């Protein structure tokens, strides 16, 4: 019954999406207010319908209704309740329903809270948003129907993949989708702007919060995935340059560029066409990511060919969206002229450099990810492009970006005196380089990444703080005056210092763990002690236990150092439904280091294989991503996005500069 209601709801949602895609757009062209106004209720109804459909599917999972194919294939009665909820999106069909729901949430949000938008712009934005909705609802209904019934329902389902029965991974997809789909708003605004042939500061102000929100979710989603891989996959890696990871990283890079270029549009009324292009590209990269993951093309061109239906459909959506978007851009971008002027040394130039480096690095990731496909398609040969390529080809861009960041962000708009602007930074540079030199001289035989990483991390964090101090004229004016300025500082300035410092913390964590990680692999017996780094390890015992839906082999390891002593319990689990093993590393987390233990197999000669890692400062990678996201969040609540509801100014009359 519920499944049929859900089915009914998604079909109705498709019909409403079609109406919303057409009527308001015509209304906006013709200036018919009631046609334009139709976008608001249709967007809201779509959200309600998809919410109902999602609720219906969730209900089927919670009550373990195995007559629904999807539930039978992905759930089981004895599965913990929380994973019955998260199991809804831990499969292709359910996750596509979630994708559509999130798309509808964003649409409804614009409809409901966008009263300050000019009616024509709102109608066009919602119409474009509905076009995307039509495509993905059709994809859901015709290729990925989550509500299919089984004629002969089984008594027990086949269970959820054990790797997905984990809090980190349970939350990973929704965050990632909020990010991916959130970028559709930027896309819709961009297309609407191209239709209108007008991009101004007001437009940038409307686009920026949506992009910012999407970016925060994307940052958190990627970070959750990386953290999950770290503690779950069993060797403590945190980034693999896997095509699936790259699929989420490329939109992140472009969205980051977009956030920065939108500032230029808003504050300086230039870089308009480029910003619109980035908005189109950011969502395009989200779609490419979806295509790569959903079509199976990544495993091999052949896997794609064996079941091409879904892949072809996504490819079609991809072609229409990107092709359509870029065609619109080609036709209309010349309308987006800007006349504002800035010097070579200026904040504007700094942000252009930021955009250049971020876009090229995103392109490098794209080329690297697609290269094996291109080669296989062109020559039939199979080659691999793995982490060594990305480390070599991508990292230099980030190093240059970080070197330029503090300088670019401290430069004033329009025209800077480089010497004067750099004044607060010389000290920072001296400290950073000294710190790097110190690290270099102290470490024995370590890798060069440590001193470089420490220098860059200090440079970017202290640089952000120096910029902040500069803003409140710290020590330039009396302390009380500085505090007053601090109180008046817009939230976006707080966001900036947080986001940039977060980047520094990430670099600090990455270079520490890469340079100074200690690894030990050996066979150990009960009671045997051995040293790794400054810690002593003893395997006390290994016990067989039972979990809710899995059996456990759990080791008890005593870890001692001069200052502390604790027990860790590395586990191996065998999930009953799938007979599939997973590792649960025993991890003692800390701000200065993680102690990470993986229990291996019983050895024929007696004893157990055991891997031990000491990972210095590794958690700062994720602390950094959190600080970065917090920066985005703080910026999101900047006054200018809420109050000064930007009204479109009439064209400023200025002497048109000769061109």
């Amino acid at each position, binding site marked *: 019954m519920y499944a049929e209601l859900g089915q009914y709801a998604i079909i109705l949602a498709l019909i409403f999406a079609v109406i919303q895609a057409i009527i308001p757009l015509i209304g906006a062209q013709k200036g018919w207010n009631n046609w334009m106004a139709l976008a608001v209720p249709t967007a809201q109804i779509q959200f309600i319908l998809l919410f109902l459909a999602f609720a219906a599917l969730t209900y089927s999972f919670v009550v373990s209704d195995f007559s629904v194919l999807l539930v039978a294939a992905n759930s089981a009665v004895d599965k913990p309740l929380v994973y019955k909820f998260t199991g809804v999106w831990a499969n292709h069909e359910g996750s596509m329903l979630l994708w559509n729901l999130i798309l509808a949430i964003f649409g409804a949000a614009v409809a409901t809270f966008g009263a300050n938008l000019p009616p024509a712009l709102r109608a066009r934005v919602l119409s474009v948003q509905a076009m995307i909705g039509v495509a993905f609802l059709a994809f859901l209904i015709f290729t990925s129907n989550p509500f299919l019934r089984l004629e002969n329902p089984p008594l027990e389902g086949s269970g959820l993949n054990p790797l997905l029965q984990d809090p980190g991974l349970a939350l990973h997809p929704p965050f990632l989708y909020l990010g991916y789909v959130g970028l559709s708003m930027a896309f819709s605004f961009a297309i609407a702007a191209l239709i209108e042939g007008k991009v101004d500061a007001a437009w940038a102000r409307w686009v920026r919060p949506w992009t910012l929100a999407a970016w925060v979710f994307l940052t958190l989603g990627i970070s959750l995935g990386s953290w999950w891989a770290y503690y779950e996959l069993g060797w403590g890696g945190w980034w693999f340059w896997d095509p699936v990871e790259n699929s989420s990283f490329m939109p992140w890079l472009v969205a980051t560029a977009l956030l920065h270029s939108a500032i230029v549009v808003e504050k300086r009324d230039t870089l308009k066409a480029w910003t619109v292009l980035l908005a189109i590209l950011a969502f395009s990269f989200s779609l490419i990511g979806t295509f790569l993951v959903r079509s199976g093309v990544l495993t091999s061109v052949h896997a794609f060919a064996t079941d091409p239906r879904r892949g072809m459909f996504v490819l079609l959506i991809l072609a229409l969206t990107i092709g359509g978007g870029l065609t619109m851009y080609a036709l209309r971008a010349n309308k987006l002229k800007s006349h504002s002027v800035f010097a070579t040394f200026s904040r504007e130039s700094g942000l*252009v450099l930021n955009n250049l480096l971020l876009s090229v690095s995103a392109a490098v990731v794209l080329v690297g990810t697609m290269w094996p496909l291109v080669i296989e398609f062109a020559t039939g040969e199979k080659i691999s492009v793995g982490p060594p390529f990305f480390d070599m080809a991508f990292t230099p861009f980030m190093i240059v970006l970080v070197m330029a960041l503090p300088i670019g962000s401290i430069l004033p708009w329009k025209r800077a005196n480089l010497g004067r602007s750099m004044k607060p930074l010389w000290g920072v540079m001296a400290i950073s380089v000294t710190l790097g030199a110190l690290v270099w001289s102290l470490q024995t035989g370590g890798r060069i990444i440590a001193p470089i990483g420490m220098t860059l991390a200090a440079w970017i964090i202290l640089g952000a703080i120096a910029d902040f101090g500069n803003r409140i004229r710290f020590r330039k004016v009396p302390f009380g005056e500085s505090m007053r300025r601090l109180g008046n500082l817009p939230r976006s300035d707080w966001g900036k210092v947080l986001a940039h410092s977060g980047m520094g913390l990430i670099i600090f964590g990455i270079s520490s763990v890469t340079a100074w990680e200690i690894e030990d692999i050996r066979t150990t017996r009960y009671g045997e002690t051995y040293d790794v780094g400054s810690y002593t390890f003893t395997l006390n015992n290994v016990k067989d236990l039972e979990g809710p839906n899995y059996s456990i082999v759990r080791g008890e390891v005593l870890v001692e150092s001069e200052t502390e002593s604790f027990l860790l319990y590395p586990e191996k689990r065998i999930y009953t439904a799938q007979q599939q093993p997973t590792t649960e590393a025993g991890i003692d987390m800390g701000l200065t280091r993680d102690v990470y233990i993986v229990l291996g197999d019983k050895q024929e000669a007696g004893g157990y294989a055991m891997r031990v890692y000491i990972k210095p400062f590794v958690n700062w990678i994720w602390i950094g991503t959190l600080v970065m996201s917090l920066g985005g969040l703080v910026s999101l609540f900047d006054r200018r996005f809420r109050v000064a509801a930007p009204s479109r100014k009439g064209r400023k009359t200025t*002497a048109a500069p000769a061109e």
Partner: protein
Amino acid sequence: MKYLLIILMLSSPAMLASPAMAVEPSEMLDNPELEARARVISKGLRCLVCQNENIDDSNSGLAADLRILVRERLTEGDTNQGVVDYIVDRFGEYVLLKPTFSGTNMLLWASGPLLLILGGIGAVSFIRSRGKQRPETGLDEDETKKLASLLED
């Protein structure tokens, strides 16, 4: 994340059937220097039956066989490159996680610098064009005409 991919796309849990660890203690060489070289080589070789995993990290049986093969070659005195060549001869370029610097792959390696140069030219010419434009005078057309006529007088 790579497992997520496998799960979401193929839904075939069977492929993760054999529980094992990445590098097993029993595989490791007694000579620490050779073992260290083996680890470095292993990290650059792809596990052929996995999703984008190197044989050093992989739990699959085939990866274990390759790890042992790498160590055998090293014990027999091969150089690092010699070991890699030996494996590429048997399994093809697909095992190399770092693509070669030859043939069409040159384009892959050059893509970053090339795009940077192209983009850089675009960015520089944009910035220069912004600098060259006459600054806004704050006068509209009428005012400019008026000013011009006043100056003529």
